[in-house]
Every structure is written in C-alpha cells, then in structure tokens.
C-alpha cells in the first residue's frame, strides 16, 4: 500500500487542501477555496474506495448517502443565527465518528500492533468521546434547548479533576489489556470520557461560547489526527492537524479578545452576575434624537442575532448613507456566539463589508462620533471591564462607545436604563424603597 504512487496521490490531495485554505485569505476567493477542499476530500474518498477491496459496499454507500442527505438538508435550512449550534452539532458528529473508528480498530484482534498506534488509539477514543459530548452540550445550549448560562455542579472543580484522573487510570488499564478484557475497558473509557466532556462544557456559558466552540474545533481535529495515527493513514493525520491548528489559532484569538487565559475561561467559576430588575418606571424618555447625526457607529451584539434585527440595522445604515451621513459598524471579536458570527449576520443582511471595522481599527474614532447605536450588545461596551475588578469581563478590551457624544442602546423591553453614576443611582433606588415602605 505504501507505494510511491500512494505517496504522490496523498501529497496531491494535501496540496489541494492547502490551496483551499490559502484561498480563505480573502472573501472573494474563499468560496472557491471551500469547493477545492471539498474536492480534495472527495478525491481522497475515491482513492480509498478504489485502492482497497472494500467489503459490504452496499452498506457503506447506503450509510454515506443517509448521512450526506441529512447533513445537506439541515445545512440548507438553518438560518444564520443557528450557525453556531449547527457547527457545534457537526463537531459532535465528526468527533463521534472518530471515536467509533478508533474504538473498532483498537478492539480488533491485530497481530502487528505498534505501540504508538495503540497509544494514539486510546487517546483518540478519549478525545473523540469527550469532544463529542462537549459539542452536544454546546450545541444544545446554542440552539436554545437549554439555558446558556453556566451550569455549575457542587464541587465542580473536584468532580472534574476526579473524572480526568479516572479517565487517565482507565486509559492506562486499557493499555495493559488485550482481547475481550480490552473491549470492556474501552467501553468504560468511552463512558467516562463522555461524562468528562459534559462536565467540562456545561460550566461554560453565554459570552464564553466562542472560546468553547473554537476549542472543540481543535479537539475534533486532534481526534481525527489520532485516529489517523492508529490506522497509519497520512491523510487523516494531515487533515486532523490542519483542523487542530485552526481551532487553536481561533481559541487563542478569542482569549486575546477577552484578555483572559484559556485556563481561566474553562475553570472560571465566576458566573455572570444577574442584574436584579429595577422597579422604577418614571424614567426619562430615551435620548432625544434632535436632528440627524453626522457620524454614526453601530455596535451589533448577540441580541441583534436573537432578534433577527440585522436586516433593520442594515436598512437604517443604508437610509443614513442616503442622507449623506457616515455610518460604520464596529465589531468586537467576541460579539456573538462564535468567531466572526456578526460578520456572517451582517453579510446576510447585505451590509457592505467596507463598513465593518474591528476593534483596533475603530476604537479611537468614538470620541469624534455623534451617535453610537448599540444593538443587543452588552459586555463588549461595558466600561466596567475597565474600571471594575473581579468581574468575568474585567480587563477585557471593549469598544469605547462611552466616548461618543450620544449613545442609543437597544435592549429587551424589560430593561430599564438608569442614567447617571451607578453609586448615586443605587442610592436613589434605596431612598425610594425606604420611602415606599
């Protein structure tokens, strides 16, 4: 099997994938890059199909067609808000496939087991199973089937540590076992790793989701690469490593955007504080929009996605532009639920990409801005990130909306904005409360 031809064909397929990823450096060329990558994988499948005597061909084709039909029909129906959940579920499917493949290969009676293959088989089993359950938890949260807030068990840190330890011990036992004993231990290992993934992912919530989903991307790639080492397949290793690299780069980018270490994101027990609803109704009306401002910056957030408000935001921007006003969109790297989420939503609403600016590009412009329109964003403009200590967002770079002349905040109806210094405002609330009892 390891002929020169085989090496050349594998090299060609890897080259096609590299060119495909390279084309992602610009939006115009990315679509062809995606098509190239798909072609590369199709080619790889063809090579495997014709260079091996595959048995049960009808079953293989039927299974592939069933999965492809399901994947295709879901992909054509989801809207852009559901993309993060869709990606999470796909991560889950890919990881489970890697886990099952490693499992079958590992528990097969093989004479020529190389030590490295066995180790990576066991590791592939663990990473695949944990990434599977972690992705499903993330997907369930992102799809709105469960609350997006972090779920913290009593003694969460210890439960997690105990699970990691038992996975390690069980992995060690699997290394020593053979035959039918190995089958049992491997099943137990999968169960423990699935539990580990759940406990790991459930603690991450809301604004930290982009980090989790990037991290799971890397884990899925690692599971594929480990599966590749197990069956000694170069293509699996190369593709898995590409994906692992991509997930790692994105995880790092998200952590830099939040100015938090990845370890702190995943172990941080600080749940986002829930603000108590205010019981005051005699609030002055929203900022009077006297005349039309010259310079406007729109800051979108996950709330815009939830409300499908990107179309109205785009319409508003176009209308202002027709009036000869300057409109720009300022996008925080962690806005939304996955890296680049806002860009996709605004592209869906046909906003010109020249109007979109990232944090470093636009942050010194707010002081010269007449009006900032915040659409469903919260943490990314919260000055508490600068001033307050000990909150989950402390130290995170924010969009300096507070420097603009006027700010309009679009948020849920139940939100009541109390303008002014927080200390004085709370003091006022306290006085009202005392007065009413």
């Amino acid at each position: 099997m390891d002929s020169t031809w085989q090496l050349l064909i594998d090299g060609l397929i890897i080259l096609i994938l590299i060119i495909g990823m390279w084309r992602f450096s610009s939006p115009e060329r990315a679509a062809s890059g995606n098509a190239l990558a798909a072609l590369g994988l199709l080619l790889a499948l063809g090579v495997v199909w014709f260079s091996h005597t595959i048995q049960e061909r009808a079953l293989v084709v039927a299974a592939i067609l069933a999965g492809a039909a399901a994947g295709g029909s879901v992909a054509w129906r989801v809207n852009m808000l559901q993309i993060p959940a869709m990606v999470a579920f796909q991560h889950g499917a890919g990881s489970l496939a890697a886990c099952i493949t490693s499992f079958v290969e590992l528990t097969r009676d093989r004479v020529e087991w190389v030590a490295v293959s066995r180790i990576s088989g066991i590791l592939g089993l663990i990473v695949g199973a944990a990434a599977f359950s972690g992705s499903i938890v993330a997907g369930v949260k992102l799809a709105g089937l469960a609350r997006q807030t972090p779920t913290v068990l009593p003694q969460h840190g210890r439960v997690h540590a105990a699970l990691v330890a038992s996975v390690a011990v069980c992995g060690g036992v699997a290394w020593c076992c053979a035959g039918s004993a190995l089958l049992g231990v491997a099943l137990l290992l999968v169960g423990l790793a699935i539990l580990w993934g759940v406990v790991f992912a459930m603690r991450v919530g809301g604004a930290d989701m982009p980090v989790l989903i990037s991290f799971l991307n890397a884990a899925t790639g690692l599971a594929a690469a480990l599966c590749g080492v197990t069956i000694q397949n170069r293509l699996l290793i190369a593709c898995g490593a590409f994906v692992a690299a991509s997930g790692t780069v994105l995880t790092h980018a998200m952590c830099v955007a939040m100015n938090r270490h990845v370890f702190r994101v995943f172990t941080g027990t600080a749940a986002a504080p829930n603000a108590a609803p205010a019981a005051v109704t005699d609030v002055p009306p929203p900022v009077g929009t006297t005349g039309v401002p010259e310079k406007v910056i729109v800051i979108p957030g996950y709330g815009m996605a939830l409300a499908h408000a990107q179309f109205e935001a785009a319409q508003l921007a176009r209308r202002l532009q027709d009036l000869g006003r300057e409109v720009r969109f300022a996008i925080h790297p962690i806005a939304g639920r996955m890296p680049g989420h806002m860009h996709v939503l605004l592209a869906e609403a046909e906003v010109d990409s020249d109007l979109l600016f990232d944090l470093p590009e636009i942050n010194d412009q707010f002081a010269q801005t007449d009006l900032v329109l915040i659409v469903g964003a919260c943490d990314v403009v919260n000055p508490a990130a600068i001033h307050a200590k000990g909150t989950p967002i402390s130290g995170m770079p924010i969009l300096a909306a507070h420097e603009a002349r006027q700010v309009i905040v679009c948020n849920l109806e139940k939100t009541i904005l109390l303008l002014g210094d927080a200390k004085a405002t709370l003091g006022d609330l306290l006085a009202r409360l005392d007065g009413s009892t």
Partner: protein
Amino acid sequence: MRDLLLLTGVFAGSLAIGYLLIARVPVRLHTPLMSMTNAISAVTILGAVLLFAVDTTLAQKVCGALALALAAFNVVGGFAITDRMLRMFRRHHG
C-alpha cells in the same frame, strides 16, 4: 520506525502549515473558516470506510455504518453551510 518518523513529520508539518495559513485569514471569515475546517475534520470518513477493508463482525458493521453516516453528515453539512455563507459574502463584497 521509518513509518513512525514519517507520520510524526506529517503531523508536525501539517500543524505548522495550518497555523501559518489560518493566521492569515481575516476576522470576518472566521465563521466560514471554522465551518470549513469542521468539514475537513470529517476526513475520518476514510478511516470509517477502511474499517470495511477486512472481514467484519455484525457489531463492527453496525459501528462502521454509524461512523460513516456521522462523518458523511459532518462533511456534507460542513461544506454546504460554508458555501451558503460565502455566497452571501461574495454577493455584496465583490
């Protein structure tokens, strides 16, 4: 041993090339990028097909078919959704 070196080399090399390529991708393409690499990670479909290169027991057939369907779901869904997203980008960003 030679094989092992080759496999390690492929892994390390791909990791490095992947890193260099991904670092060049602009922020606005991060969602399609993740969605495409997600589809690429379903390359395990090759491993699942290879499960059937030798004789299989019934349990192995069931496992293999499940892995194939899951990987196919991942690969087709991943590329299709990426394509949909990128079409939106191209339409108004060209």
